[in-house]
């Protein structure tokens, strides 16, 4: 994707600023909510799954382990859910001026990025307090994994936003699909819990989200995390193929569809 021009940069920042203001006006805690949301969700899931259902699988540092997974998941959901309505929601602009269409999707991802960054600060706090075992040698991989997560989420958002212009069913489909995906991704449960019962369950690690989350946990929280490499062997290299592929599909689909956004939106 081309580097943003000066004009596009100021359009993007203006859109992000006004979205930001619109979202948090009339709310007392304002921006704190974006921090509290994943934290509270983690607390609920922690209580339900660790205290009542006891499926933590004796994972050390399970609080950090869970929070990191929830954060990545929330990031993915915010970008893709925001992406669904990104173009249609800005239909007013698209019908009247010729701003680059991709700015609408990128601008909705901005707030997810900010939230993600802030959540990381909270996570680091918890990690320091609980004294996790960080794989220092592998820290260099963290930015790459985060970039992979962003690229994957954004690519899906582009496809969804363009498809939503034509098919309003997308929002319902995506809502149900993500519910299913949440349980198919090893976020709340350790992978070996599945593998012990169903060996074929290892294929859930083909999901780029599962691969990214587990790898991040392995580096940042505990070396007992089962990464795609452990579970799948050489097949864990598939993201090298699937991520670029989905990005190419997303860019091409969005480009060809964006020509008719103004008349269809």
């Amino acid at each position, binding site marked *: 994707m081309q580097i943003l021009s000066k004009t596009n940069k*100021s359009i993007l920042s203006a859109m992000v600023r006004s979205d930001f203001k619109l979202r948090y006006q009339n709310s007392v805690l304002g921006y704190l909510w974006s921090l509290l949301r994943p934290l509270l969700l983690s607390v609920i899931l922690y209580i339900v799954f660790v205290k009542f259902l006891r499926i933590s699988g004796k994972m050390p540092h399970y609080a950090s382990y869970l929070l990191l997974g929830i954060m990545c998941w929330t990031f993915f959901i915010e970008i893709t859910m925001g992406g669904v309505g990104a173009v249609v929601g800005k239909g007013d602009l*698209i*019908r009247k001026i010729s701003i680059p269409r991709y700015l609408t999707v990128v601008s909705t991802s901005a707030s997810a990025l900010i939230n993600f960054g802030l959540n990381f600060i909270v996570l680091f706090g918890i990690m320091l307090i609980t004294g996790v075992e960080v794989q220092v040698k592998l820290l260099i991989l963290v930015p790459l994994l985060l970039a992979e997560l962003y690229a994957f989420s954004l690519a899906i958002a582009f496809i969804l936003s363009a498809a939503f212009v034509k098919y309003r069913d997308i929002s319902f489909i995506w809502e149900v699909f993500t519910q299913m995906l949440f349980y198919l991704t090893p976020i709340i449960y350790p992978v070996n819990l599945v593998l012990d019962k169903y060996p074929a369950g290892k294929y859930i690690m083909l999901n780029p989200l599962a691969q990214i989350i587990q790898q991040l946990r392995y580096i940042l929280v505990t070396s007992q995390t089962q990464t795609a490499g452990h579970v799948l062997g050489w097949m864990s290299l598939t993201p090298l193929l699937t991520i670029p592929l989905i990005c190419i599909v997303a860019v091409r689909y969005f480009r060809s569809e964006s020509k008719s956004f*103004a008349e269809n939106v």
Partner: protein
Amino acid sequence: MSDNKAVITVQGISKYFSPSKGQGTMKQAVTSLFKSGKDTIMRDGYWALKDVSFEVKKGEFFGIVGRNGSGKSTLLKMIAGIYEPTDGKIQVDGKIVPFIELGVGFNNELSGKDNVYLNGALLGFTRKEITEMYDDIVAFAELQDHMDVKLKNFSSGMQVRLAFSIAIRAKSDILLLDEVLAVGDSAFQRKCYEYFMSLKKNKKTVILVTHDMGAVRQYCDTAVMIEEGNIVKRGKPEQVAQAYQKLFIDEIEDAKKKNGSLKNESDLRWGSGKLTAETPKIIIKDNKIIISCKYTASEDIEAPVLGFTIYGPSGTNILEGNTLRENYNTEPMFKNDSTSIVWTLPNILASGTYHVAVACCDQSTTEFYDWFNEAGSFIIVKEGNTAGVVDPELSATIKQG
């Protein structure tokens, strides 16, 4: 740089709108897979524009006129890059700022100030540039005390003022204006005319889409008329404006023919038809308004009374004149005879758009041969503000004590 360089070249563009390709549900998409695809698509859609070509030269004020639904706004949106042409090519040399509507991106829930920054960014300004001209924008819109209030608490007039105040600052080589004049009161319209005047003075390239033939005559160097997706007339603004007005006259004639009677009443034109007026020529020159009109008789008649009425921006009757009251004599007319009359009056009118009706009747003013409403229109632009209908030269003497 040569003034004759084309900055916009439109080559054989067409635009096809197909509703079946538009928004729908998955079900429609799936079921259409099983129908013979192309067939259904081509049946439902329509061509908004068909093989349109023209050039706009640097510094030209270019008018596009046409009826509602003729395709002129579609054309403008394609030049602006909002719509993709189905066929053909558009080349634009320079930066375009389109005003399809004032205040693009305005959000009711944001304050006036936030909206200035948002709208400004969408018009191509950086945040720093907007900060620099923010005070000027607010001052010009006369909204100093309101900028922290949410836009939804602005009156529509205030919103338009704010939007316009940002819009006129847009720096670009080419401006696309679509019916900006359709909104606002007469004071706002006057500001628009002054802005047009300054654009013309600064040799900006402007494409103006409008229904207002007064604006076309006053500002445009060249104009085209679009009818059902085709350019049906191009050339001098005067010719195009006349062609446009003739569209409506023809329509009335057709209606008359259909109903078999010339006495058929219409909002725009009615009368017995024994004597009919042509579209009047209106010239504003040297502080004079000159209205000339030609009448042709379709049967032998007594000496007729010829008259006109000027209606103001809000439709009020501003002034009337006729040969009877002004004691001018006319001659009896035979079939196919023509008479021309030229009215000259001092230009005391305030800035705004005016419509002219021309009429003719018999000496007793009981039988109207032809009453032709909105036969012509013109625009007056004067310096300074007035809330009055007339704006004549005033003089005063002041004594102290």
